[in-house]
């Protein structure tokens, strides 16, 4: 893909001093790596700049990693990215159906985690719950922006209520979540699916379904309480979020 030779120096008078500094240093370090005695190699393996540090981080739970991120620990941030980028991207992709926007949202989410980890309070819930909540929130915001922007072609400019509910329900892929939703009444399921997977506000849902706002609030609330009893508790293992 890249064939360009370094013939450009003459055209970049300001940049030529830059050329000198970089390469020799790199070659030296590569040389040192191949000729270092075993003791030095062992030292290099346990130094925090290398892979073993990352694998230690991988054994830490989400809350510990978030606490490190709050202290601007970029390696903990990388470990969290590796643990949650797949799930975050899946949420964004499921909501937005657009790889460009889903990538933007994923970036936004990790930006928010980096900047907001200080606000995470482990006494109010797990790190996993917090991260997935940020991911869903950013996805919903992006979806609402896309709906407001008429230049964006949305696959679901649907007039019919049944179509809207079905479009939202089609975003539910995992069997265990589908089965849990089937334990709800039709009304509860429609309200929750439109809210969580459809990204609609409770007012929008009330308008669409032609029922009072208070009724929608009750359906969402009762539905979530029922879901809590039928959904399996989330796994608490540190690597629990590995997406296959």
């Amino acid at each position, binding site marked *: 893909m890249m064939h360009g030779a370094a013939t*450009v120096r003459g055209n970049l008078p300001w*940049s030529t001093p830059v050329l000198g500094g970089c390469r020799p240093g*790199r070659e030296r370090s590569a040389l040192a790596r191949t000729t270092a005695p075993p003791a030095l190699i062992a030292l290099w393996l346990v130094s925090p700049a290398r892979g073993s540090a990352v694998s230690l981080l991988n054994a830490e739970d989400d809350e510990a990693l978030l606490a490190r991120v709050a202290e601007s620990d*970029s390696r903990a941030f990388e470990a969290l990215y590796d643990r949650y980028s797949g799930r975050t991207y*899946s949420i964004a992709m499921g909501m937005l159906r657009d790889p*460009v926007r889903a990538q933007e949202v994923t970036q936004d989410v990790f930006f928010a985690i980096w900047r907001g980890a200080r606000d995470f309070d482990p006494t109010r819930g797990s790190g996993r719950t917090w991260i997935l909540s940020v991911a869903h929130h950013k996805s919903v915001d992006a979806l609402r922006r896309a709906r407001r922007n008429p230049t964006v072609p949305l696959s679901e400019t649907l007039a019919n209520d049944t179509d809207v509910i079905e479009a939202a329900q089609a975003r539910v892929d995992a069997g265990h*979540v589908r089965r849990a939703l089937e334990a709800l009444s039709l009304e509860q399921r429609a309200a929750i699916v439109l809210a969580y997977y459809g990204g609609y506000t409770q007012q929008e849902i009330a308008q669409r379904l032609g029922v009072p706002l208070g009724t*929608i609030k009750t359906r969402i609330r009762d539905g979530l309480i029922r879901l809590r009893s039928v959904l399996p508790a*989330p796994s608490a293992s540190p690597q629990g979020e590995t997406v296959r």
Partner: protein
Amino acid sequence: MTHDEIRESIAAYALHALAADDARDVEAHLAACDDCRRELAAFEQTAASLAEGFRVAEAPGALRRRALAVARSERGVRPGWVWGAALAAAAAVILILGGVTVSLTQRLAALNGRVEAQTQALALLADPASRVVTLSGSAAGSVRFVFDPATGRGALVATGLRDPGPDLVYQLWLVAGATPQSAGVFRPASVVPLIVAVGVNFPRYQAVAISVEHGPNGAVRPSAAPILVGKLGGG
């Protein structure tokens, strides 16, 4: 709103199903009400289980670098507001890298990313509201920046830029006053036009500029005079 009225909306809040002003009311109440916070924690846990419902999609490999860039550039630095703006700009950048393809997966991800950036650039070019700025300076090549101030989307479209040399990259800067903010690094592709997509609040910036910096990550501040500059106009 009263405690009871708020309480009725906590479940919807956990699903992000409140309009912005309602959400603010709930948040104000939550700050002062332990009962409602406990209630929210339980609902949020159920909402997190719903997050498992989406079809599993693999995040493109090239995304990792971009998403982690914020931590690399900020390590050990207490962010002030200027930093915040620069990082927001950096985080909003979609950057297509040529020449670092190691595995087939990465190559595919890079190709996908490039197609997406080209799609965005095409949409911008087709939009009558978009504006086009031609960058000029000492480097050979045709480099234009097309952007739509209304949507905050922009794309740098470059053809004929030469390879900057080993270990060097081109870095795109957005200039607000005397403060250039990085909008990403890139290396030219040999055949197809290179496109760097950018999403920022354009009225803040007066110009776009390109300098040559150390690869692979570029610099926090330009270390050399720009080789290409284009005025965005406006203020």
